[in-house]
């Protein structure tokens, strides 16, 4: 089966700086795919390249069999890719309900009101805040609103950029549960970018690891969780040597 989303040899620049150095990845329909990596590895740039906020110099982005790498982000969104950007990016002066309505801007069907109720089912706390301006919401509530707004697009694919950023462990757990539920119940394929490797590996089916603009590892999340490199560098499990410090030879396998 062809992948829902397929990136082939993507190279993206910020001015003269090459942020993505030839990335290829696939997201198969129905799965949760996690993209891990440290700060500045290029994860966010990959998402921006997919959603059209940035254009790649080289390579192709295929969604549902169409090449979309040169398109504007609003066009890409209307194809069914909902991007939940890093830092929520809600519309601060619109109220919660208006934010959700804007999520359905490209839709003309009659079930928009029903879908708003659906979002309130997933995030009951938003229902009580429906007439509040989004800027007064807490970080966690804004994250829920951003995900809810993305859901209003009825997307085939949801791009989630650091949904755990700045949230308490309890909220992270809650968001993680919601993401899994959306995947199972609403049949939304998910590409999740995270620095919180534990969460990303827990809920993901397949994982990619990025460093310095390249993908350095890819595998089922199950296996990634048990890989020694990942355990040491992303999950913080250190293998103490006999003398109580790390052996100088210990290096990541991909270097």
């Amino acid at each position: 089966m062809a992948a829902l989303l397929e990136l082939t040899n993507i190279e993206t620049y910020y001015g003269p700086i090459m942020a993505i150095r030839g990335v290829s990845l696939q997201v198969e329909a129905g799965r949760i795919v996690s993209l891990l990596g440290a700060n500045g590895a290029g994860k966010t740039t990959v998402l921006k390249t997919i959603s059209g906020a940035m254009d790649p110099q080289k390579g192709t982005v295929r969604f549902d069999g169409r090449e979309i790498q040169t398109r504007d982000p609003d066009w890409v969104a209307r194809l069914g890719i909902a991007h939940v950007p890093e830092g929520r990016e809600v519309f601060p002066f619109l109220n919660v309900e208006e934010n959700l309505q804007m999520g359905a801007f490209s839709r003309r069907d009659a079930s928009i009101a029903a879908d708003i109720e659906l979002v309130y089912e997933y995030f009951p706390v938003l229902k009580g805040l429906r007439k509040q301006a989004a800027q007064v919401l807490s970080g966690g509530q804004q994250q829920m609103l951003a995900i809810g707004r993305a859901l209003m697009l009825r997307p085939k694919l949801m791009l989630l950029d650091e949904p755990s950023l700045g949230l308490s462990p309890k909220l992270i757990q809650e968001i993680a549960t919601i993401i899994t539920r959306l995947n199972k119940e609403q049949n939304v394929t998910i590409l999740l970018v995270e620095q919180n490797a534990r969460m990303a590996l827990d809920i993901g089916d397949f994982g990619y690891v990025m460093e310095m603009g390249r993908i350095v590892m890819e595998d089922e999340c199950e296996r990634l969780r048990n890989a020694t490199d990942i355990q040491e560098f992303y999950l913080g499990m250190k293998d103490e040597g006999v003398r109580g410090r790390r052996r100088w030879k210990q290096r990541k396998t991909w270097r």
Partner: protein
Amino acid sequence: MDLLQLIVSGVSQGCVYGLIALGFVLIYKATEMVNFAQGDLMMLGAYVAVTFINILGWPFGWGLLATLAVMALVGVVLERLLFRPMLGEPHFAVLMLTIGLGFILRAFAGAVWGNEPQALHAPYAGQVLRVGELVIGYENLVIVLGTVLLCTLLYLFFRFTRLGIAMQAASQNQLAAFYVGIPVKRIFSLVWALSALVAAFAGVLTAPVSMIDPLIGFVGIKAFAAAIVGGFGSLPGAILGGLLVGLVEQFAGLYLPPGYADMSAYVLLLVMLMIRPEGLFASMQQKKV
């Protein structure tokens, strides 16, 4: 009574400033461009109305509607041709472009309609309303009522229509608007259309009162001061700033030696910048870069 009379004319003049300021703010909020040709769009609107009403002899109402339609179209064309390619360019470059556009519009108006002052024929011109000792020209009354009507319509549009909310969304967070599938570039076209339409409305309202010539667009600079007084970025602030400038100007005209009235708008601006630099209605949050 003198006082009331002054207030009436100050308010009606202020409404015109306010409407032009509204055009500044609309474009600035949505696209972060400052359009210094806003006053010249008002001038062009007045001349288009002169064409329909004086030259072609259309009834005033139809002439007004046709003018608004034509000017909205002009706004769209300007955006597509001149300003969309400038998205993301330095503010300074865009500013120069709008100043250049102002020169072109003034020259164009001079070439087409001539440089002699003319008056727009309005059915209500010259009539006055007497309330006690107060004498209010119908022209002034129409300006105030027209402004109130337009502002109400704009309020309803931005508050309750899908498109109006989308315009707000696009100006509050452009990237997020893109991500949810709002056609942001088309929204920008509409904002320019709306802004040109508001300017033209101001032109049509003011044309029966004061004679129009290709240089009347320079009131745009006073309106710019009004927009800053109001807090550049706030629609109610623009109108209020306009009213304030209009009133201060009238009072300065009466109580100060001749010549000071023309300065008063800028003095007000300077005072405002010193005591409350964010304006009357500060836009509550800094725009994200």
